[in-house]
């Protein structure tokens, strides 16, 4: 049993003198002597089946934290079944031979607690924290879900649906996309680089879940950490009773090596319309137990560990380029990485990246000054006790130390080793850990807006959010002529009702007139409940379709926004104001090129009756979005013919889906002449417009 007290160098934290006079100090009072930190002692034991037990006694409160960590992380997933461990963890609490999912929830919640299985890259962990009285119950439940989970088919399907929609949601999250492609770039075929995909999520079966559980969830190499109001003999007794019959030894695995470092280049993940760029820069760094870890952690703190570090101070406070900029050094079981990140506005993407790289070079070149070393050590040394305040925190620290093989004295000597790092050590460590000239750089953003800027920094490869390679030419919107049957576009006036949740909440009136080859379309939209009204006027030529002017006024929430755009000779100029979800109005000045045949977003509704609609038809069009000042390729696809009943009557109508914009829409256009728009649905939303007359 170890009981080691820290003797930390006093010099580091200032003199231990308290002021004696009772005057109010005008500068921050100096640090008092460090108070003793007795790291909670721990005891080790092993069951006959190989399961290792680690007990940290702490009897202050009647609380016990239990965590069982097994060598069954996602790195062991068979190829093509990425995401499998997510299913395993999710399904463990969804039914056993003797308990349904409801009974498991009810039992653990009945004692005021919860029970989780969590998948990680290296390990899979089952954990809970309970009052002392309920420790046997916790062991009973934990062993039940571990040894007797049934993985019911219907729960697998529910989990699959959730995972698939999470993957879908990930595509609209620039941060998640950046992390995914960064891992892939850095680790290649090494399992840390493999990620769940739609295909792999669909490939998981009950069989594959059971096979994995059988092969990998074994007591050999697993660690049970129990911390709190309990002792070793009680823990051993409970572990023996509930886990004594658990058998098995997971096979050792070897993993393919990650790719070798190569000269820095940039992977641009093209996300059209992105208002900001997410930048990740990094490289492979250290394995657990590396003696330079302490120096690297301090250097990392100086560079970008918090809001008083260089990256934050320079990129955010001094330049105002970013919402935040940080860096980190990871330490998983295999090789870890260094990574710096920043989210920046499109227009400063290149400047921010150049500055970030120059900060990486600077910290390799110059030993940090004393002031930064003191601040970094002060934080890292001072924050350590806060990480071992509760039994579950202690369990997690001790568990990590043990599983990564950091040595029995790691936690006891952690503060001293950090304190002993010199500025020179910190700089030396960065030379091993940070490699700006052979770094992986991933930028997620609007390629159209940032490609040229990035190309001036380093060679750029481009992919779309699905991972398909693109060329620089793919970023340029190519002209498509929009074919119309001008005869179908007749002067008329239509009234629509806007329906939400089955109730009318507003109206839209549209009017179209033609004179001398020019079409004028006006649209009035009013939703009284939201305090919103909008008037739009579009002027365009029809043969061929060429935009003229667009004027729009929106009143919303007591504010007024105006948009005026003029199209002429391949350019559009003007000013656009549009309400944002935040209630603010975004205003942009527009003076940009626009491809031939592009239509302004407000003109689509007017043109629908004149398009060459037929069953199965798919019409590509370029849409200039005034609210964003950019052109987006979109598609109108006829997905079928439906009988549509609206207040104005029953119509046989083409269902035409518009995709490529933020909100997919379904338009219903009557097939009889004259063709009319009879209904608009916002796909996936409880909103529609129906023709009244």
């Amino acid at each position, binding site marked *: 049993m170890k009981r080691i007290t820290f003797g930390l160098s006093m010099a580091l934290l200032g003199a231990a003198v308290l002021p004696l006079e*009772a005057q109010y100090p005008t500068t921050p009072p100096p640090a008092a002597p460090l108070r003793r930190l007795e790291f909670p002692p721990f005891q080790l034991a092993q069951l006959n089946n190989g399961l290792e037990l680690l007990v940290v006694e702490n009897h202050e409160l009647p609380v016990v934290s239990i965590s069982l960590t097994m060598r069954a992380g996602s790195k062991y997933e068979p190829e093509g079944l990425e995401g499998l461990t997510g299913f395993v963890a999710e399904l463990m609490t969804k039914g056993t031979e003797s308990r349904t999912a409801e009974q498991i929830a009810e039992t653990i*919640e009945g004692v005021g607690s919860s029970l989780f299985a969590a998948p990680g890259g290296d390990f899979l962990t089952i954990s809970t924290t309970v*009052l002392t009285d309920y420790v046997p119950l916790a062991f009973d439940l934990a062993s039940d879900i571990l040894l007797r989970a049934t993985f019911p088919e219907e729960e697998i399907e529910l989990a699959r649906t959730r995972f698939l929609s999470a993957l879908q949601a990930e595509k609209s999250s620039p941060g998640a996309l950046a992390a995914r492609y960064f891992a892939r770039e850095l680790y290649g075929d090494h399992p840390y680089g493999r990620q769940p995909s739609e295909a792999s999520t669909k490939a998981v079966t009950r069989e594959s879940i059971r096979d994995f559980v059988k092969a990998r969830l074994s007591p050999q190499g697993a660690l049970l950490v129990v911390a709190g109001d309990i002792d070793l003999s009680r823990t051993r007794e409970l572990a023996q009773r509930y886990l004594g019959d658990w058998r098995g030894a997971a096979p050792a695995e070897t993993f393919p090596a990650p790719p070798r470092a190569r000269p820095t280049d940039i992977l641009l993940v093209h996300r059209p319309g992105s208002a900001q760029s997410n930048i990740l820069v990094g490289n492979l760094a250290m394995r657990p137990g590396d003696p330079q870890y302490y120096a690297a952690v301090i250097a990392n703190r100086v560079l970008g560990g918090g809001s008083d570090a260089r990256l934050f101070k320079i990129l955010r406070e001094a330049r105002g380029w970013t919402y935040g900029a940080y860096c980190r050094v990871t330490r998983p079981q295999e090789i870890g990485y260094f990574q710096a990140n920043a989210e920046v506005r499109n227009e400063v993407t290149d400047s921010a990246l150049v500055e970030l790289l120059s900060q990486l070079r600077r910290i390799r070149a110059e030993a940090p000054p004393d002031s930064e070393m003191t601040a970094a050590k002060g934080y890292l040394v001072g924050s350590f*006790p806060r990480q071992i305040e509760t039994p579950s925190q202690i369990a997690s620290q001790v568990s990590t130390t043990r599983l990564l093989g950091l040595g029995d004295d790691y936690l006891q000597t952690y503060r001293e080793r950090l304190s002993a790092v010199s500025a020179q050590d910190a700089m030396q460590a960065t030379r091993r850990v940070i490699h700006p000239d052979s770094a992986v750089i991933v930028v997620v953003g609007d390629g159209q807006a940032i490609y040229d800027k990035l190309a001036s920094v380093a060679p750029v490869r481009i992919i779309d959010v699905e991972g398909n390679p693109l060329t620089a030419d793919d970023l340029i919107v190519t002209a498509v002529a929009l074919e119309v049957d001008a005869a179908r576009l007749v002067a008329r006036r239509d009234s629509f009702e806007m329906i939400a*949740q089955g109730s009318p909440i507003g109206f839209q009136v549209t009017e179209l007139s033609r004179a001398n080859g020019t079409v004028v379309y006006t649209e009035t939209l009013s939703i009284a409940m939201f305090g919103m009204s909008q008037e739009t006027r579009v002027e365009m030529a029809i043969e061929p379709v060429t935009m003229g002017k667009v004027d729009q006024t929106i009143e919303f929430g007591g504010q007024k926004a105006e948009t005026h755009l003029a199209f002429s000779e391949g350019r559009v100029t003007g000013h656009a104001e549009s*309400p944002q979800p935040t209630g603010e109005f975004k205003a942009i000045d527009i003076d940009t090129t626009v491809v031939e045949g592009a239509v302004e977003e407000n003109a689509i509704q007017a043109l629908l009756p004149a398009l060459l609609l037929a069953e199965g038809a798919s019409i590509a069009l370029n849409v200039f979005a005034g609210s964003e000042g950019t052109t987006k390729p979109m598609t109108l696809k006829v997905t079928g013919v439906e009988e549509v009943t609206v207040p104005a009557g029953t119509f046989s109508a083409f269902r035409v889906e518009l995709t490529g914009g933020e909100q997919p829409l379904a338009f219903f256009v009557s097939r009889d002449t004259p063709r009319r728009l009879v209904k608009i649905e916002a796909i996936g939303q409880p909103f529609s417009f129906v023709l009244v007359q």
Partner: protein
Amino acid sequence: MLRVAIPVALAVTCTAVSLSAQQRIEFDRYTLPNGLRVILSQDHSTPIVTVSVWYNVGSADELLGRSGFAHLFEHMMFQGSEHVQKREHTNTIQRAGGTVNGTTNEDRTNYFETLPANRLNVGLWLEADRMRSLAVTTENFENQRDVVKEERRLRLDNQPYTPAIIEGTTLLFDSTTCFPYSHSVIGSMDDLDAAQVEDVQAFFDLYYAPNNATLTVVGDFEPADAKRLIDQYYGDIPRGRDAPRPECQVTYGQGAGERVWEDKLATLPGVIIAYLAPPHAHPDTRALQLLSTILGAGESSRLNRALVRDAKTAVVSVVQMSSRRGPGLFAAIAIANQGFTTDTIKAQLQEQVAKVLAEGVTEQELTKAKNSFRAQDVFGRQTTFAIAEELQHFAHFHESLDEIHTDLDGYMQVTAADIQRVAEKYLVPENSLTIIIVPATAAGAGGTY
């Protein structure tokens, strides 16, 4: 740093409840001559200390036309004082390895630091410096007003359902008889725009005086050292005027209301049924809180089982209950699943509440809820920060700080009959406001497409 918490406690089985588990929190308390209340509680298990200051001022203290001040102040308090430069408060704490933050709610504003035990002095000094000499300047004020607006955009307006829950439920209160709770903590941006730096200074002088504050220190320290430092740092801060307390008149059972709330970020419609609940210290509160757990906390709660798991009409369904000095809320919430309407989930929420009124709750459910409270009570005392907040809570929201020793017993004594009684008293349609949350994503203006 507005905290929009959605507290979800957990609950379930028929295990017998033992009353012995409540751990006694020992403390000393005293008051300085200038009125500053001090609570000290030692815990030597880890060399950590938490310094917590609660000012007895929240959004409920704001006057008509002056909403948003309490929260703005929370920001102002990090903008420097006579001996502390802007941002240096946070940086000093960080360099010592500590954490620091502040939050505002209806009834109080709190500030706290958790530090290595040998830096107790710097935590106490930083709090004292801003209590005695906050830099109330036009520049700081204007700058933080912008920050608050940005925060509103990011934390409130940019989150689906949050504005409906936070601002929608204030509609339960009539602003003419109870302005304190009829506006949200973040307040009106127009009021903030209209404010002058003199108003801000007056607010500081009235509410940020030692006689309106409670200082709590929890952790590894020697009481004599702490007392000496507190005398030295806080002793000569002048006492302020006594602050007036807010007035709120409500009438229970005034009639059912229903409002439609447009939510620009929500993709699925939702329903909130909010009932007017008693103040936190009211004897009925415990039974209502236990009921809120039975109905709407955890996977095995009634709402989650009925709406989410069985009928699959909702993606989430929970109950939230406020802990306020004045009258509060008991709110049942459901977000509809794809393809289901608010009519369906509203009817299901009503049905679940009606079932409690008609049949009450089972002994098993009650035991499960009590176990949950007992466990949360212990789990909530694992850190110096949590203990400090607990002490402050009792000092502010209960008759006496000593109730910290007996409060849990009160929950354990609640019977199923008590629960049915409070349900009949508060959870009736004429005491409710229903908010129908309508996603407006598709209705958003602009080009629409």
